[in-house]
């Protein structure tokens, strides 16, 4: 984007100064001097930026350098006296003739100056704002780009750090394999022991069972033989004896209860 400054409309004198460098001034002693072309045989690179503000002018027409030029010889009032003298000379000698155009010039000039003085600053502000917006937009793009790049660099570094941890995965895998092998081995040991124990316990249980069965059988057989040996006569006698015993017991308990 090119530099766009709303400068005062009448600035021909500034252009004049650019073309005819002041020889009276030392090196680059303009009142407003940031862009001195052709003051020395050296060429400036990179070319310095355009000035922000235009050259100073007095009364919107005459550059300040003119007053500075005349100051040493004629002081502060010199240029004014010169101007007045010139004007009076031109009027009196009729080099400049007053006619209807003069009135037109004065009227238009006054309106023009009034317009510039009243609306100039606001228009300048508006134009500057347009420029600012353009710059801000591009600046935003640049800022986003910078931030994005910084973020991308961080991401890449993080990924590199991540990659460094790959040994952990393989350690975990190897651990798993070792643990599985170990588990398998232990299971086998346990299984062997358990099986042997089971067999021995089985033998013992078998023995116990045999003994138990023999005992039971013997008891049953003894009981059977005893019961079969009891004759009917013996049975009757034992029942009668039981009844008398019971009666005696009942009498005893009755006596105990009443006593």
């Amino acid at each position, binding site marked *: 984007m*090119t530099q766009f400054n709303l400068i005062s409309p009448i600035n021909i004198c500034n252009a004049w100064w650019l073309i005819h460098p002041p020889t009276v001034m030392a090196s680059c002693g303009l009142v407003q001097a940031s862009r001195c072309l052709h003051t020395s045989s050296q060429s400036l690179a990179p070319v310095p930026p355009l000035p922000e503000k235009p050259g100073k002018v007095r009364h919107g027409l005459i550059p300040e350098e003119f007053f500075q030029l005349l100051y040493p010889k004629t002081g502060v009032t010199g240029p004014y006296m010169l101007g007045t003298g010139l004007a009076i000379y031109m009027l009196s000698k009729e080099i400049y003739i007053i006619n209807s155009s003069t009135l037109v010039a004065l009227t238009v000039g006054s309106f023009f100056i009034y317009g510039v003085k009243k609306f100039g600053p606001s228009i300048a502000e508006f134009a500057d704002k347009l420029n600012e917006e353009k710059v801000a937009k591009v600046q935003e793009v640049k800022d986003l780009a910078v931030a994005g790049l910084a973020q991308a660099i961080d991401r890449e570094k993080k990924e590199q750090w991540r990659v460094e941890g790959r040994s952990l995965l393989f350690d975990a895998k190897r*651990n798993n394999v070792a643990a599985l092998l170990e588990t398998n081995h232990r299971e086998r040991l346990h299984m062997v022991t358990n099986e042997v124990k089971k067999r021995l316990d089985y*033998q013992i249980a078998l023995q116990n069972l045999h003994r138990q069965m023999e005992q039971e059988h013997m008891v049953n057989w003894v009981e059977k033989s005893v019961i079969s040996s009891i004759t009917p006569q013996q049975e009757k006698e034992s029942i009668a004896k039981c009844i008398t015993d019971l009666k005696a017991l009942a009498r005893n308990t009755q006596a105990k209860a009443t006593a």
Partner: protein
Amino acid sequence: MAARRVALKAIDWVAFAERVPPNQRGMFNALKTRSDAIAAKLASLPEAPAAIDWSYYRSAVARIGMVDEFEKKFKALQIPAPVDTQTSTIDAQEAEATKSALVYTEACKARIAQYEKELDKLKNMIPFDEMTIEDLNDTFPETKLDKVKYPYWPHKPIADL
């Protein structure tokens, strides 16, 4: 029986978890649950089986010689250690991973260098206030208007304005 092998390396699961990228978190969780299950199973088994009380069995079992025979055979029994078939595969995987990691790291470094170059270019460019259109086209080549393809103003398709 066989000798004890304590070849387990302590793994820092927290550090491991930090290094896992978000898109592989599922795989990591699966691995972790599997590992935990295996480790739990290992811990639940006692290291050596309970010893058999031979003297008790010798007195209890009626059949003479049976217990002695069992004892002899039991003591002579050797359970072979399980064969490790996977560790070599894992080592091969690790070597391959190292290689690919190296390649990836190189690519990463190249990308970082490129980004840094761009960053430097952006940081050192002349401020926008002091640029001309030529300077802008030099710094951001995408702003250059193709005056050959679109010879008439605005030198770009109307839709792009």
